[in-house]
């Protein structure tokens, strides 16, 4: 009698456990329905539609993507709008926020619950792009502010040699200072020291045309480890290693001074990696303990005697709870990424009289051979105003 009752209870317990698992798995399906998006093929229009449909925590991610597309499409107003939305968020101190707490939580959390601000290389690029626009608007001091913040963001790297090691951020910081009649020599020296053997051009404060170029495809994120708890980067060396711009009878060299693949992979460990690592250990441990307990329960259930039934029941309950706890433990690293970043960044400054100039932009591979199919024929306009003419050139289409 007791045995059959125990079996009855055990079955119910198993049913309750299974039901609880099912409820836990389906209980989260209360998110608002996502607005349907009609894609047009225009990255700015589609990006804005995605942004409108995205959760608030993903807004900066879409701001980043749209801003890059807008800059490449010479739509400065759109690029500024999105960068100015994102920068106060990524440049502030995010503390005591519910979503960050949720991201760190052991159960039902997940790093992608936090408001997206991006990894340091992504935040740096938001400032880098905003600086292009500030300089174009005749505010080089605000551009310099962006370079300084960018370099500070990069100071998060674990290893000292990779802290604040963007060559262009220091170089351009010093260039702005030199142009504003201040001393840019310290920043130039820092840039030269980090240029890995490349000789940086000396500052020409009379240069009125500033060329920012980018090429290659930037890093991609993915989740590594047993449960995707490790933030990893897929980096593929892009074919374009350098560029040249033929304009007004001269060939302007645009070598790669910075590499975002290098920047993404040299940050080192994050505090969040330790948190997720602990969660992964717990998840794995709870899952294994659940397996052992459930196997033990089956073995015990096949033994004779009251104690065996009670033991089976206890082990079964423990196994179910362990499995539940393991299933509810969230360990996945945040792999939301700014997916239209370039790999390489370059800059050159030259003097040109006001007017329109036909120009040809070519990209070269590692051996210096011109890459067929990537050549761009351009018409560049040099302003007659006092402010510098800032030209932004990209290999990327969107």
């Amino acid at each position: 009698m007791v045995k059959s009752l125990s079996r009855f209870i055990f079955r119910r317990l198993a049913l309750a456990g299974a039901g609880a698992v099912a409820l836990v798995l389906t209980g989260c399906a209360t998110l608002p329905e996502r607005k349907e998006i009609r894609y047009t093929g225009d990255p700015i229009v589609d990006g804005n539609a995605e942004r409108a449909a995205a959760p608030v925590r993903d807004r900066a991610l879409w701001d980043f993507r749209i801003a890059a597309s807008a800059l490449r499409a010479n739509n400065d107003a759109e690029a500024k709008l999105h960068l100015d939305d994102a920068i106060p968020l990524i440049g502030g101190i995010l503390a005591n926020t519910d979503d960050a707490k949720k991201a760190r939580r052991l159960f039902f959390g997940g790093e992608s619950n936090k408001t997206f601000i991006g990894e340091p290389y992504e935040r740096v690029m938001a400032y880098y792009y905003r600086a292009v626009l500030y300089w174009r608007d005749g505010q080089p001091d605000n551009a310099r502010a962006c370079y300084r913040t960018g370099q500070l963001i990069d100071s998060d790297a674990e290893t000292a040699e990779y802290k604040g090691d963007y060559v262009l951020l220091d170089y351009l910081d010093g260039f702005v200072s030199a142009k504003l009649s201040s001393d840019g020599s310290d920043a130039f020296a820092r840039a030269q020291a980090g240029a890995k053997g490349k000789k940086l051009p000396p500052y020409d404060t009379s240069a009125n045309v500033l060329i920012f170029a980018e090429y290659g495809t930037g890093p991609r994120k993915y989740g590594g480890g047993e449960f995707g708890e490790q933030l990893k980067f897929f980096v593929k060396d892009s074919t374009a290693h350098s560029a040249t711009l033929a304009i007004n009878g001269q060939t302007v060299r645009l070598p790669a001074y910075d590499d975002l693949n290098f920047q993404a992979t040299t940050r080192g460990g994050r505090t969040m990696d330790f948190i997720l690592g602990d969660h992964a250990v717990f998840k794995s441990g709870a899952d294994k303990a659940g397996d052992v307990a459930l196997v033990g329960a089956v073995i015990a259930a096949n033994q004779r005697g009251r104690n065996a039934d009670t033991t089976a029941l206890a082990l079964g309950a423990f196994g179910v709870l362990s499995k539940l706890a393991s299933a509810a433990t969230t360990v996945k690293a945040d792999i939301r990424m700014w997916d239209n970043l370039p790999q390489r960044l370059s800059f050159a400054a030259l003097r040109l009289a006001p007017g329109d100039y036909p120009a040809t932009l070519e990209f070269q591979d590692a051996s210096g051979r011109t890459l067929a199919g990537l050549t761009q024929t351009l018409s560049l306009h040099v302003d007659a105003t006092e402010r510098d003419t800032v030209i932004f050139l990209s290999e990327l289409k969107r």
Partner: protein
Amino acid sequence: MKISLRILALTGITAPALFLAGCATGVQNPSGVPVTEMKADERGFVAGTGVESQDLVAVTDKMARGVLAIPEIANAKVTPRIVLDPVVNETRFPINKDIFLTRIRSQLNEKSMGKVRFLDREMMKTLERERDLKRSGQVTASADPSVVEFRGADYFLTGKLQGLTTKTSAGTSDYILYSFRLTDARTSEIVWESSSEIKKQGLEDAAYR
């Protein structure tokens, strides 16, 4: 049997608790956060270590009081004319630089009771075009348009923002020095200078480190 019932009860309590915890991940602030009106000199709940409205108000209030108190302005026999020259930003924070001088100018205009006048150099192109239209007779003029009436500056008011930043595992600290000066346009003498300094620090959530 008692043990079994205890376990059953425990399971019964734990499973719904886990289920309910799971549901709590859906929507944040489902009822929204109502708009809160704040004073411009109040610190908001969205904060950074950079230049914020409360800093702007505190700094420009101090500068406006300082300018009005100097003898060159307070005891001037002829109303001094001031031209604003853009502030130079040497900090790591991109800012709207004009906003400082705009607020100082409006504070001075409000409080000086006509003791100072500002020259609108931002409008020069528009003003010159209007003058040329008058000179060519395309529009009417209430005075002889050939006489130069654009006033020259007696003083230039400008400023500079400089900063120092420290970032360690304990957080980020930013010190900003706001300095403004009034320069005599004739002699190049700095007749007034004042500064204000603000330091802020914070540490972001571990989820962002």
